[in-house]
């Protein structure tokens, strides 16, 4: 009797059922464009989030989430964010664009300054906002909104 039941609940593939192909991982979403590089002076390099190499920056180059920008001594660049906020990057600086925060609960900010000086300006602070993370602090300016 026991054997009969086991046979009835057999787990093998029926003869007419074809094997299913392994499920493919969903494609990574395209990177989100956050800013644009302008007013390049001297040697400015960009490292894409997906790449390992520093490439020479070009005027008008779009910047995406988790991209990094580096300037050497005497170099400089302007980063124009989508909301119109402008950040002037000084020489010998290293910054990240809208970096994914490593710790849960930490909000993503527009800019991470790892080294060097940035001068930020917002023409209409009632409508614009800019948030900057550094190794020691987070700076927020303009409209009080949560970064999306």
């Amino acid at each position, binding site marked *: 009797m026991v054997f009969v039941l086991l046979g009835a609940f057999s787990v093998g593939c029926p003869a007419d059922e074809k094997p299913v192909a392994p499920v493919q991982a969903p494609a990574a979403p395209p990177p989100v464009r956050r800013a644009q590089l302008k007013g390049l002076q001297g040697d400015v390099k960009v490292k894409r989030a997906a790449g390992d190499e520093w490439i020479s920056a070009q005027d008008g180059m779009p910047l995406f989430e988790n991209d990094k920008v580096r300037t050497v001594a005497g170099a400089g660049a302007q980063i124009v964010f989508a909301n119109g906020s402008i950040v002037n990057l000084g020489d010998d600086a290293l910054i990240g664009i809208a970096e994914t925060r490593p710790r849960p609960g930490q909000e993503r900010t527009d800019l991470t*300054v*790892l*080294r*060097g*000086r*940035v*001068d*930020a*300006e*917002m*023409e*209409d*602070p*009632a*409508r614009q906002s800019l948030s*900057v993370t*550094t*190794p*020691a*602090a*987070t*700076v*927020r*300016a*303009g409209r009080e909104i949560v970064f999306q």
Partner: protein
Amino acid sequence: MKSSLLLALLMLAPTEAVVRDGESLAEVAQRTMGDRGGASELKALNGLKDNAVVPGTKLKLPGPNRELAQRVLTTARNALAAADTKAARREEASAKLKEAEAYFQGARYDEAAQAADGAWKLVAGPAPQPTAFTVNVTDKGITTVKSRSGQPVRVEAEGVTRPVHPGESVSVEKGQPPPPPRAPLGVPQPTSPANRLKLTVQPAKGGPSPVTLAWKAVEGAEGYEVELVPARGEKRTLQASANQLRVSLTAGLYRWSVRAVAHEARSEASAEQGFEVAEAPAKPINLQVQPSKWK
């Protein structure tokens, strides 16, 4: 005076009108309000469903708030017409004005005035000052934030947030909260010379004798900045490390004020004081001639 007269006239204005034979609502509006376009307002004000009015019907007329709303609307229309077409708030102001016009047509004059005023403020108000700040990170990770203009920026570290106002700067070390804001520097009080005093200085070999300007010391001040304005000549800004300053001045009238300064902070200037410098007349030379027998 003019406005009170106008208000009095408006108060005396009729509050009702009777529709005459063969008169349309637009004609009633023209007769009573001087504006055919006021028909929609009469319609709204009297709860009429259409423009047909029976002769003899008593119609309620708008009160003095119509005049006020009309004025505010005109001001807003003019401001919008004069505004730069690229002005960031023009579109918003235009929508607000449209809203005001709709309220007006519906005889909701107070709301119309309020909306029109809002539209005017959007285009005629002073442009907000840009917010500018600097963030500097050293190799050791120390972050210095300086607010340069506009709204204060907010610096957060270790769960503590503090505002940084224009002209102020804050340094934050890794793992430390931002330091508490310093108390604002006090304003120095000038003590000498007394206001409007006439000082007489003795001419010396190297020019006039110096005048001493003094004021009460301010706690936390690292120095002082004295602004000296002669009645003739250019303004001078002088630095002092203590609460007094000796300065050689030529004859004339002077005004001066002083402010306390510290690292990244300056107090307000003191109230302006005045004094006059006059050169003492040269001492008379007493010549004594000995009588002599010589002729």
